[in-house]
């Protein structure tokens, strides 16, 4: 009996925490704000990336574009 209650609680809480808190497509206004991006200032990031690629002697591998062909 006790086990059943425990299991019921577990299942119920899994359902609540796993899915109930996910933002829906129309609730992403705050997530779309510029301060929510992973990087900071765009220009600063570009400079950093430039220094990094110069030091490494290779570019690419951090995004979709750039496969190390040296063409960007």
């Amino acid at each position, binding site marked *: 009996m006790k086990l059943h209650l425990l299991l019921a609680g577990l299942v119920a809480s899994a359902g609540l925490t796993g899915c109930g808190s996910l933002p829906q497509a*129309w609730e992403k206004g705050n997530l779309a704000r510029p301060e929510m991006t992973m990087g900071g200032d765009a220009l600063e990031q570009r400079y950093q990336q430039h220094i990094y690629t110069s030091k490494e002697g290779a570019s690419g591998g951090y995004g979709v574009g750039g496969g190390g062909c040296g063409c960007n």
Partner: protein
Amino acid sequence: MKFASLLLAAAMLCCGSARALEAGEAAPALEVPGVKAPISLAALKGKVVYVDFWASWCAPCKQSFPWMNEMQAKYGDRGFQIVAVNVDTKREDADKFLAEVPAKFTIGYDAKGDSPKRFQIKGMPSSVLVGPDGKVIKVHAGFRPDERKAQEEAIVAALAQLK
């Protein structure tokens, strides 16, 4: 046995929102306040209605407005109506967006998000083409330049039914 049914119940709780609106289904009710008068989808029965859900923070939404203006101007007199429901939590954000990208079609406001929930919207922007009989013809998420033609064709096909 009891455990299995509990698991099933939990799974159903989880997946309740995963269901999507499909073509052929009756469109959910849409009653939202508009700029001047409230908007009701039921009142637009007999017309081909393009229900669009948009937000000020959604970049493709901004691209979609000129296209929707064009569609409204092109097919409006043939019984076509665009209803674009804003889902911003703050009305000022929506008004700022509209000042930048003017809309020549009906705008509705739903800050609580009840209508996108009922329409089971999965992405922003999303559009639901509703036929004159109140049934869903096409559901579409996103707005990409290469999809405009197919969207317009769906509108034209729906309008052909009208006559």
